[in-house]
């Protein structure tokens, strides 16, 4: 039986958002990347050339509303733009004298009030916070055992995906720039029909998001790995990982050894092996029946 109700909150993600320190700065993206360590960037709420703490707090409010399901991207963007108006922002004059915001072409990415800019800040932060929470939730012993790997997949639709360009007659690839090329470049292996899967503790994840490898990367080990990326991760079940050859049946889930919690040990001791094998066999049969029913 499936029961539906109202949701409460997304605790890990909202906690991460609340803990982020607002860091106003007049620096551009390149200067921030060069001078701020990656860990500081991960723990901070910031945007290039954004010198007003009030604006960052406005972003925080809208990110909280988006993650709570209380608003949508169009309304959140409009509220940030309203706030910029109230702070006296103008693309040509910034916030006024001495604020260190250079003039920008209206509507461009450098215009703090453009749709493109506000969307990029909202979407990038939202995805990073949600994926950080998703990654943390997947680090429990049970989760690392049941889902030992991530798969790199397209999560957000794009009319022209990264690494493709539009020509008469359709999209054509720009070799070396798409995600499969990046995956191969950082040592990722392909399974099945080109699936990009690696253990949760594989070095390919931080390498994919490293500016040492890709100019548009965000120096992160959770998606989005690059500016305006539509790619994300999904968890892959243990048996599927074994069937595809990503891990061996006896592989540890990660380099970090599994610690069985007390509840698990008590329950493990309660049942004999034959009974547990019979339970597993019953489950396999009913899972198979359920799958057939779905056809």
């Amino acid at each position, binding site marked *: *039986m*499936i029961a*539906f*109700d109202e*949701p*409460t*909150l*997304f605790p*890990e*993600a909202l906690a991460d958002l609340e803990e982020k320190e607002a860091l106003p700065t007049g620096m551009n993206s390149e200067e921030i990347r060069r001078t701020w360590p990656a860990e500081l960037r991960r723990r901070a709420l910031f945007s290039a050339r954004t010198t007003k703490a009030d604006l960052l707090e406005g972003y925080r409010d809208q990110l909280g509303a*988006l993650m*709570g*399901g*209380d*608003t*949508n*991207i*169009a*309304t959140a963007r*409009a509220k940030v733009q309203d706030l910029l108006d109230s702070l006296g922002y103008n693309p040509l004059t910034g916030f006024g004298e001495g604020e260190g915001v250079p003039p920008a072409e209206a509507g461009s990415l450098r215009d703090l009030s453009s*749709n493109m800019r506000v969307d990029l800040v909202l979407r990038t932060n*939202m995805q990073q916070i*949600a*994926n950080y*929470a*998703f990654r943390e*939730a997947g680090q*429990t012993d*049970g989760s690392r*055992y*049941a*889902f030992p790997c991530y798969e790199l*997949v*397209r*999560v*957000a*639709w794009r009319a022209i995906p990264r690494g493709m360009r539009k020509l008469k007659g359709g999209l054509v690839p720009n070799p070396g720039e798409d995600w499969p090329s990046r995956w191969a470049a950082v040592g990722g292996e392909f399974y099945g029909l080109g699936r990009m899967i690696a253990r949760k503790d594989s070095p390919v994840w931080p390498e994919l998001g490293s500016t040492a490898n890709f100019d548009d990367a965000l120096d992160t080990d959770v998606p989005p790995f690059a500016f305006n990326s*539509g790619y*994300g991760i*999904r*968890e892959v*079940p243990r048996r599927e990982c074994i069937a595809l050859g990503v891990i061996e049946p006896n592989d540890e889930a990660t380099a970090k050894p599994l610690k*069985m919690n007390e*509840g*698990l040990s008590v*329950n*493990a001791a*309660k049942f004999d*092996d034959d*009974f*547990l094998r*019979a*339970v*597993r066999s*019953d*489950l*396999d049969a*009913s899972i198979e029946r*359920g799958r057939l029913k*779905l056809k």
Partner: protein
Amino acid sequence: MNGLAISVDISDAVSERVSAFISGLENRTELNARIADRERNLIRDYFISLENDPARHKTATYLGATPSGFWGMAANNTSSLATEDAAIVQVNHPGVGRSMHDVTITPGEGKQWLTIPLIAAAYNQRAYRVPGLFVVPGAAMPLLVKKNEDGHSITPWYALVRSVTLEQDRSLLPPDEAFEVEAQEGVRDYVDLLFENRGIA
């Protein structure tokens, strides 16, 4: 909070032996965590497939606009929760409730109209942020229009309506059977963990 909280009880979908096994557990939090993770991933993967289904971007495609990423954001906002008593998946995203019932959208506080985009530039925007719009009576409903650069002709940007009712669409979530299968997979993951605890494959 807008969205859905989903909990699954599989007691009527498993054998007596599996049922006896679950009843005999001292503490079910880890079992529920395994079930909740399976269900979360089922829903998350389903939303990702909706996001990548061109048929789900009909309005944006028709207008020639960029899709808003609605279902990708729903996938991001899907999380799981386990307690001793329950395995719960939460989807904090507006509009997902439509999978369970009709949804009637009315204007927010202090507003009289909803805006329906008629051109690509109007899609995924709040009308009050678009300069130069004004209301004209339309044949069927009032329209928000803007003067073109020639200063004479106009382009309709939005139709104004009092409310919109979206009919229930159960296909916005996976079918019930898929929830049951994944719940059983979660129990199986838990049994595998018990074997792992004993060092038996």
